[in-house]
């Protein structure tokens, strides 16, 4: 009951914070009073309301969403596999770590321009979101696996626990907090970098293309509207993925000793 009250209170506080920012935004748009420099929240909402009736809006959203999600999923799978390889082999760990450091320190814009030489513009956001998320997943999962309790692993050795049971009862609980936090950070990154790649590569029917055109023709309301849409999709996507991970983890740990 106490927890529930605390949760409700927290929600009220965050809603209040959002409302306050919206008011500040509205005030700023009134003070600046220029449709080219800033759009008001009301204008943005009405623009989104108009956009949702256009086919191209849904085409752009679904195309960008699919590509960026694909990049994210590929990064998660590759990052987990590479980190497991690195955990078992010192050479692989050094080898991958060097690559991850290099990837992390290269600016997104440099990557996008380089990547345009290697892949078509329509696949650019897949590659860029993949590259931006990969080091985050790799580093965190490796840290998580390495943080597995050595004493529990010794216990598992003495009792001859199977690899599956070790994974489920010792490694997964150690890795999960790191994995969830990596996914949370990675999701934000993949959207930012994926859209940036689209703005530079301008693939057809993409959010990046829409943003670029809005900027080109000084359609400030549309620019703000698309930005709000990106934030919305990114938040929903993050919540969905984190919920999926939670459910998966719950299912794995709840289902008892079937293997």
């Amino acid at each position, binding site marked *: 009951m106490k927890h529930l009250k605390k949760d409700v209170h927290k929600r009220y506080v965050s809603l209040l914070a959002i409302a306050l920012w919206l008011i500040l935004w509205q005030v700023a748009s009134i003070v600046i009073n220029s449709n080219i420099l800033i759009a008001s929240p009301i204008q943005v909402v009405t623009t989104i309301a108009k956009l949702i009736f256009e086919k191209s809006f849904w085409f752009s959203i679904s195309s960008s969403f699919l590509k960026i999600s694909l990049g994210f999923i590929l990064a998660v799978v590759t990052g987990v596999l590479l980190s497991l390889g690195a955990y078992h082999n010192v050479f692989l760990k050094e080898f991958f770590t060097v690559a991850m450091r290099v990837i992390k320190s290269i600016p997104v814009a440099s990557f996008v321009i380089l990547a345009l030489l290697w892949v078509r513009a329509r696949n650019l956001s897949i590659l860029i979101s993949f590259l931006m998320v990969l080091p985050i997943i790799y580093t965190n999962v490796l840290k998580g696996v390495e943080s597995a309790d050595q004493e529990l692993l*010794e216990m598992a*050795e003495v*009792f001859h626990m199977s690899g599956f049971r070790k994974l489920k009862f010792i490694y997964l609980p150690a890795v999960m907090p790191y994995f969830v936090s990596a996914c949370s950070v990675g999701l934000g990154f993949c959207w930012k970098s994926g859209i940036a790649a689209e703005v530079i590569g301008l693939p057809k029917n993409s959010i990046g293309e829409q943003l670029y055109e809005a900027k080109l023709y000084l359609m400030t309301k549309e620019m703000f509207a698309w930005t709000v849409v990106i934030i919305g999709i990114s938040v929903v996507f993050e919540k969905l993925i984190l919920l999926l991970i939670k459910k998966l983890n719950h299912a794995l740990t709840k289902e008892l000793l079937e293997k």
Partner: protein
Amino acid sequence: MSRNEIIFENVSVNFGEKQVLKDLNLTIKQGEVIGIMGASGIGKTTFAKVLLGLLKPSTGKVVGLENKKFSAVFQEDRLCEGFDAITNVKMVLPTDIGTEQVEKEFSKVHLTDYKGKSVSKLSGGMKRRVAIVRAVMRKSDVIILDEPLKGLDEILKEQVISYLKESLSGRTVILVTHDKSDLEALHAKLLFLS
């Protein structure tokens, strides 16, 4: 040498410059109960680790460990804190052993009020009993009990000792303790490390 014996031949263990075990010669027969005593830091736990195969001797060798199944109550409970007591026991057992069997064993050590709670929520004494049941239920040839009665009050100690006596007959038991009365209660042969 009998097939079931475990033999320590001139076993020494060094940690850097510190020598923990020195030229230990010992024969452990199948079904024997051996109590290891000695001052703190003398190498009792090191001895247990060598026996479990977790630590290789610096010199000498241990013969007869092959094909033997081990179980242990470690000095620390070594339970998976996020899981409940029953899961902690079942995770080291074959899948055909059901929850009811584990519950029955828990009742023998008077462990109650553990259902639906992760072991992190249990008291020290409760965790100890979960670790003891886990080691006992695992069908092993050799069981190592490193300070198994640590954190238990006198009444629980007696109950756990009678549970151990009843459950461990025929198995080789290595009991590491500071308390001579534990050795007497389990009729253990004393090995004093000095």
